[in-house]
């Protein structure tokens, strides 16, 4: 197949009647074996997951009731994580008569823009993102939002995880039922 007949035609011929002992080559065609070898290599290279697990730093604040952090209303953005990867947010403080106006829902896809917009609109000293996780949100959500902070290069100390208030819980519940989030 891969070989070419190299015997130059009409060489020395023995006389008629003399039988030629055919010499068989000991060479084996290695092409298929090489093919197989490289095929296996390719297979192994592609199936080996190169992703190595990495470690993300977590810094927790010390719970000290005497050291409540004062946050300016104008610089605060509260991000709430709810069921079904839903994100809710509001700026400043929730006011009882403007609840539905302030309280907005979004997704993880869009939250990055919102974080960036807020960051650009606020002097860095006033900037504060308050993250609150609902009991129905997942571990992934909690990590993802912290990762969003890193992605948007929010300096440490300008975001914090805080427990949710009953009002917020109620708002989330209402929005969830209104939007049919399961």
């Amino acid at each position: 197949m891969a070989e070419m007949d190299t015997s130059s035609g009409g060489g020395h011929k023995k006389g008629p009647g003399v039988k030629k002992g055919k010499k068989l080559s000991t060479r084996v065609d290695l092409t298929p074996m090489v093919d197989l070898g490289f095929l296996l290599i390719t297979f192994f290279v592609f199936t080996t997951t190169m992703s190595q697990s990495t470690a993300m730093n977590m810094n927790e604040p010390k719970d000290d009731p005497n050291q409540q952090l004062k946050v300016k209303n104008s610089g605060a953005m509260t991000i709430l994580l709810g069921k079904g990867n839903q994100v809710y947010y509001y700026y400043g403080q929730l006011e009882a008569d403007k609840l539905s106006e302030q309280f907005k829902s979004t997704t993880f896809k869009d939250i990055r823009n919102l974080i960036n917009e807020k960051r650009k609109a606020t002097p860095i000293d006033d900037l504060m993102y308050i993250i609150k996780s609902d009991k129905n949100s997942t571990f992934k959500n909690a990590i993802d939002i912290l990762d969003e902070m890193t992605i948007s290069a929010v300096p440490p100390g300008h975001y914090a995880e805080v427990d949710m208030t009953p009002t917020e819980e109620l708002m989330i519940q209402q929005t969830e039922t209104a939007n049919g989030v399961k």
Partner: protein
Amino acid sequence: MPKVKIPRKSTTVDMTAMCDVAFLLLSFFILATKQKPPEVLTVTPPSSVASQVAPDNAILITLIKDGRTFLMLGDETKKSDILKNINDAKGLGLSPAELAKWNKQQFIGLPLNKIKGSLALAKEIPADKMEGIPTDSTNNEMVDWLRSVTNVYAGGDQKALEKMLLVKGDNNALYPAFKNIKQAFKKNDIYKFRIVTNGQAPPPGSELAKTAAASK
């Protein structure tokens, strides 16, 4: 004029060398690939842009999908000390033989009061059948575990310990379970630990990607 005869040369190439290389590479890849330890507990960690590699011999708290929590003491040099410490502190009443047997188990995933009973069994309970370390706010045994860990590492390099404390959680684990683990850390005055995640490049166009590009 005599005809010039061009000798016909063989087109066959000796494949032996190529074959050798192929299989050498193949064996290299097979051997160099680190075998993942068989995962008894299936956990799909979330992804993050963190770039530090998670250490292998760590004190790893695993949070699985259904909220069960497990502990793995990866630092073999300190493992027996930690087990002994919690045995004394919580009065588990384990004999040295039982402690030695416990030391061989990879996962710790039972409430403290069930440990003695489980060590009496002839066969080790498989990790996925264990009920997990209780972490609810009324009975958070993770606090006791972490206290024993800090006791054993006390006086040592605290920075090194911080790097070893890892939490690996499943994407779908609910947040309160993770919160309980955080509480356990806080109660032991540990404010820094790390989360095991799948590394990812910063998304293009983001602030982080810009700074990363600028520093290059």
